[in-house]
């Protein structure tokens, strides 16, 4: 909060919502947003209107692993349509859906600034680039192994 001038605590809203989402299994519930509002002395509507504006905030529950696959022009030129279709087939879910075991959610997103390393997806904090069907297989297997080890 010290990074903003006095009385400008509203500027902390976007970073704080990122933290709230992380702490709340990857999505922002109404309770989480109300808590943030109280924390920053804002009206709940000020939080809701921001949370609904930015595409990184998930307003409903997501799987443990969120595959955010870019589908904009440069990725499309390098086969993102095929990658998205493959993930759908492999996980047997549609875009915006979560697998029955709660492990994976597939989301399509617009340009993430990795156009030279297309096709790509964001997985958590990092990018997975130069995607192929084999890399997708390996990623899914890795996620399953890590999840099983943590259980």
């Amino acid at each position, binding site marked *: 909060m010290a*990074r903003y*001038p006095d009385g*400008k605590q*509203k*500027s*902390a*809203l*976007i*970073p704080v*919502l*990122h933290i709230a989402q992380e702490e709340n299994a990857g999505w922002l519930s109404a309770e989480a947003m109300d808590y943030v509002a109280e924390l920053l002395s804002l009206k709940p509507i*000020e939080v809701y*209107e*921001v949370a609904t*504006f*930015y*595409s*990184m*905030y998930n307003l409903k529950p997501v799987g443990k692993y969120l595959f955010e696959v870019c*589908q*904009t*022009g*440069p990725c*499309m*030129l*390098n086969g993102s349509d095929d990658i998205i279709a493959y993930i759908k087939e492999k996980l047997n879910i549609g875009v915006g859906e979560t697998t029955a075991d709660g492990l994976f959610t597939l989301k399509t*997103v*617009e*340009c*993430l*600034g*990795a*156009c*030279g*390393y*297309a096709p790509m997806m*964001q997985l958590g*904090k*990092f990018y997975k680039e130069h995607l192929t069907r084999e890399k997708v297989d390996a990623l899914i297997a890795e996620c399953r192994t890590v999840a099983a080890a943590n259980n």
Partner: protein
Amino acid sequence: MGRKLLLEKANIPGIRTYDVYRANGGYTALEKAFKMAPADIVEEVKKSGLRGRGGAGFPTGMKWSFLARPEGVPRYLVCNADESEPGTFKDRYLMEFLPHLFVEGLVISSFALGANTTYIYIRGEYAWIVDILETAIAEAKAAGWLGKNILGSGFDCEIYVQRGAGAYICGEETALLESLEGKRGNPRIKPPFPAIKGLWDCPTVVNNVETLAAVVPIIEIGGEEYARIGMGRSTGTKLISACGNINKPGIYEIDMTISVEEFIYSEEFCGGIPNGKRLKACIPGGSSVPILPANLLLTTAKGEKRMMTYESLADGGFATGSMMGSGGFIVLDEDQCVVRHTLTLARFYRHESCGQCSPCREGTGWMEKILNNIEYGKGKMSDIDLLWDIQAKIEGNTICPLGDAAAWPVAAAIRHFRDEFEWHVLNPDEAQKANFGLRHYADPIHVATA
């Protein structure tokens, strides 16, 4: 080999760390700058002819000189690191691999502008880069290049990194300021410009990452020397993010003296098109700028070689030219469908419209729907004219340039590839299975092979 000013040291192992950067001449421009008067730094930047590297190409020195300096009111420098224009990924490279060059540029610029607090507004998806930047800032501070009374000058400066949360519109400077204030990214009506009323209503300069990094070599070699590189009003070097159907996608620093043809086909840059395919079209400056067919890309309508400069890329206006924009260079080979590519861009702009102005909010949705119909065999001939009509009604009728950015790709695709749209409408079944290819060109081999 062109001259490199920004990426010269990019391949030195460990250049991301403070010690290696410093051992290779890092922060000497900062030392030099702190012996100068702030106004003289602004003068050097003016002399350099540096133009904003975010896309608009506005002269940086002039932008700096507009900054209001009322007594007792803080001034801010805000770095626009919200890189979101499809085809553009150069700022990411600078921040990820040369964070200290960037920090050095930020401190010099903050000193020149008298900004004691500087914010880097970075797109939320670049989450791991936030850590890289915060490490570099901490290292610079520990070494005395940041913080209180830098080099005994009496000047204090702090730099903070603020993450966005997924919104292309926040690359527009006033939307960015709204977002930094913790609000929705709705652009403000200008005037007043940020130089007068910006962050928290205080005078603010908003500059792109590459622009601020370029201040380091400008101070190092001097504005006049910097201005001698390049051609005409395209001074210095420019980072180009090359992507699409090319052999060597990536970031290239060009000195703005090479031709477009050389950039695509030379081994030093894109290395040509994979699998022996021919060039169909290219968007040379990020998704918003007009797409050009191969013939107009390589040669201007006047028959001159098209060069990688602000002026040459724009030669012929929108009728036969395009723009340097952000330097997002997207190449389409002969197997690509212009209708489908335009549809992905239309979807992008519909998704990213903030919804404040009706022409953009409604128009981007209509354009996506109509393009979707044409792409999936449900289009009518009149749809092509309707698309043209909608884009013309968006352009120039919105608060911010996102409306124009959404209109231009659609306009240029119809302007140059109308035959491909018509083919989709007339041959809906075939268009599902096959591609229009290079039928647009009377002599595709001659046109599309360098």
